């Protein structure tokens, strides 16, 4: 199998993202109508869930218990050490450090989708239960981060913790991913065939549109890079590489194949920019959104899509000795 790392940079997905960034930089009036980005998000999450679920039919749950545990442990660790690093070396306040830690410990569905599309285009197989990994790795770090912030702040107006946890576990991404998987599993491959012309075939096309829009938003955020400072910039480029490597290793050890390990690496390296910002806005309103949005959306996300995924894949290949 001949592998050309440039091909990933030249995929329609990556290029659409760059087009979006470029359009903002030249001050184009291109703008998706209100509601369309959210509609695309709903489609992507639900489609990921459905497709994964349909393939789960007849798979032994034991197969994915270990990778799942590995994923969750990784998220918790990432959250803890990024919090520490940001506090000590970045000199961030408690709320800002915690919010950022929650973002890096959680995962990005769009990056996940890009990694699947990447593997698909190379014909590399991967485990059907990966969407479940995406779902379970989303929440833990966010919860932990909020807990860290609450513990260290002496504010008396903290929101009670339990309802917050409830809100997170019923957030739209969890509902759509797990709900989609349940539907895909219950209705089986036969059921999925009925809806595949919407949820399977055009998936990469919709992802391309989504990334075009994400590029537009990223472009607007690039102006904030200066206010984010060089520490956060370097942090948002270096940590994904570290986390990606650890993720690939964790995948290898927990029994995933070369494709699955690449995806676990991608998940670990990715920073949430849908679920985490929404949660932080509610739970840590005192944290500055400029920091976490710029880091997750404008730096880590494009880095992973363009450079990270091929990197983690190359590492996985060498690890599996291909």
């Amino acid at each position, binding site marked *: 199998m001949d592998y050309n790392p440039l091909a990933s940079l030249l995929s329609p997905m990556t290029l659409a993202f760059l087009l979006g960034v470029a359009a903002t930089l030249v001050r184009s009036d291109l703008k998706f109508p209100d509601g369309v980005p959210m509609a695309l998000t709903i489609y992507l999450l639900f489609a990921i869930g459905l497709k994964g679920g349909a393939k789960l039919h007849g798979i032994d749950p034991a197969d994915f218990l270990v990778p799942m545990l590995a994923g969750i442990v990784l998220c918790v660790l990432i959250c803890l050490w990024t919090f520490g690093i940001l506090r000590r070396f970045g000199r961030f306040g408690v709320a800002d450090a915690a919010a950022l830690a929650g973002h890096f410990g959680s995962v990005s569905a769009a990056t996940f989708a890009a990694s699947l599309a990447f593997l698909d285009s190379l014909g590399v197989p991967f485990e059907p239960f990966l969407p479940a990994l995406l779902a379970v790795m989303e929440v833990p770090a966010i919860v932990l981060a909020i807990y860290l912030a609450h513990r260290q702040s002496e504010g008396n107006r903290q929101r009670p913790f339990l309802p917050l946890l409830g809100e997170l576990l019923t957030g739209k991404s969890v509902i759509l991913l797990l709900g989609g998987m349940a539907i895909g599993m219950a209705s089986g491959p036969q059921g999925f065939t009925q809806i595949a012309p919407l949820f399977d075939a055009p998936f990469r096309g919709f992802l391309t549109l989504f990334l075009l829009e994400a590029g537009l938003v990223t472009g607007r955020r690039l102006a904030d890079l200066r206010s984010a400072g060089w520490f956060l910039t370097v942090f948002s480029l270096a940590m994904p590489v570290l986390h990606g490597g650890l993720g690939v290793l964790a995948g290898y050890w927990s029994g995933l194949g070369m494709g699955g390990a690449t995806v676990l690496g991608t998940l670990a390296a990715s920073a949430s920019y849908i679920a985490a910002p*929404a949660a932080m806005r*509610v739970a840590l309103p005192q944290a500055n*959104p400029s920091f976490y949005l710029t880091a997750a959306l404008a730096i880590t996300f494009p880095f992973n899509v363009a450079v990270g995924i091929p990197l983690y894949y190359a590492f996985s290949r060498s690890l599996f000795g291909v």
Partner: protein
Amino acid sequence: MKPVPMQLVTIIAAQELEDRLLHEIKTLGARGYTVAQVRGHGLHGFRASEYEGENVRIETIVDGRTAERIQQEIAHRYFNEWAIVLYATQVNVLRPDRFVSEEPVT
């Protein structure tokens, strides 16, 4: 019918707060409200995309006493932590009783 002065209380806040704020104003005596989707910019930065979150503008016409209660309560509970803008305007309505709070002031 003769126009009677009432207070129009307007709250601009993060969409995530919508349900809670509507619950508050109902509890405080508002008998109706109108909500619009808006975007904005203020001391807490931009709120104009899916990722940044959007704002809502909540408007409720109430009697003067309820207006005051709503303003004090929201200020007390939300001003410290949240990006909220709150103001009251005098307006003239034709059927005042449909806006007057039914509950006694406690």
